[in-house]
């Protein structure tokens, strides 16, 4: 019997974030602090994909992402699919939808924003403008491109 070759190790329990556009995997790893769970994380970059040409994939053992976390991913990679794995089986497959609001994830890039020095969670409203994702700070009411917020 021919043994199937996986380029990324299969996991017994946890989450597989699949169909990440190639090149965004590292940013997602960092932005979502996926290494902070302390669990084993395996990643694959530039893997061949039937639908995308090439893709990145992230597997996190023993961690399930809640809907809010999954939706935050949509900001970076709306095409990504979040699979929950139990005993090597996919038990839940979530396609992502862009959230209306993102809390407690990013710092406001406006250095004069009062939210930076107060005991509040950051809060942005997600807007689509001319095909671009923009984030409007709930506090300072300034609007930013997705990239300027995620790098802040």
């Amino acid at each position, binding site marked *: 019997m021919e043994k199937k070759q996986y380029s990324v190790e299969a996991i017994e329990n946890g989450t597989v974030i699949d169909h990440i556009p190639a090149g965004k995997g590292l940013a997602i790893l960092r932005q979502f602090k996926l290494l902070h769970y302390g669990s084993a994380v395996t990643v694959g970059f530039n893997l061949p994909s039937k639908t995308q040409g090439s893709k990145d994939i992230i597997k996190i053992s023993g961690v399930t992402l809640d809907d809010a976390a999954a939706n935050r991913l949509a900001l970076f990679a709306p095409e990504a699919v979040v699979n929950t794995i139990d005993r090597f089986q996919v038990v839940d497959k979530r396609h992502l939808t862009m959230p209306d609001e993102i809390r407690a994830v990013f710092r406001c890039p406006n250095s*004069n*924003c*009062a*939210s930076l020095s107060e*005991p509040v969670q950051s809060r942005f409203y997600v807007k689509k403008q001319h095909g671009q994702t923009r984030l409007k700070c*709930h506090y*300072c009411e300034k609007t930013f491109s997705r990239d300027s917020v995620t790098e802040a």
Partner: protein
Amino acid sequence: MANLLYRQNVISVSDLTTEQLELLLDTALKLKASPRDDLLAGKLIGSCFFEPSTRTRLSFETAVQRLGGKVIGFSDGANTSAKKGETLADTARIISSYTDAIIQRHPKDGAARITAEFSSVPVINAGDGTNQHPSQTLLDLVTIYETQGRLNQLKIAMCGDLKYGRTVHSLCQALKRWGCEFAFVSPPSLAMPEYITEELDEAGCRHQVFSSLEEAAQWADILYMTRVQRERFDEQEFAKIQGKFNLNAAMLAGAKPNLRVLHPLPRVDEIHPDVDATPYAYYFEQATNGVYARMAMLSLVLNEEV
């Protein structure tokens, strides 16, 4: 029935519904026509100015006292506990336990919204950083309504520093609800930001750029002047634009009779004193309306019925 602003915060023009704005406007004009000195009787208002702004503070404090209320507070953040590192959140908890409402001016963007989250009493934003200054916008609206008898479908020309001018941004954001048309006159480097023109597009409001102030003055119902600050240019650049954005009486020759010239004041040389004597000048009345706009905010927030 309780009014739409009772026990509400007034943080940002974009939070206010059109009904709330109209109620504020009506109330301001009502209080101007028949003054009331009882609407804040027995009320104590916190006037918290974390940065100095004498004009705005005096205008608010006048409003409180004319309505029969009392004021406590400070006029400069330099000597407050904020300077020692106390958060706004804590200051808001404490001051709101003493008072019936808080008027706050703060150098940081979004400060008013944070104070409102931790305050147990209504918060009125008297300016937060470069963000919002709703009482200024309201007094502009009151003045425009007073001079034109309506807000819908007016032709509004704005001139000067349209890039950094918070007042013109907020005014656009407010007036777009009534389908006004806009014209902008400014040095190219101080043009109206794209996020504002995009909002006007979304609201279906037409806008254009005029190259001269004369052209704008002939077209407009309202000509809203702001100051072009010399500091924003090097000497050579400033020499090129100098005087182009300053209004004098001769420039108003072809204006419509209902044209009114507004300016958030203080002016330097962007409006020549010879405009003062023309029937078009309305900037001093505009400043007076500031007190009525602030009276309207305070009395609606603190009274079920006004």
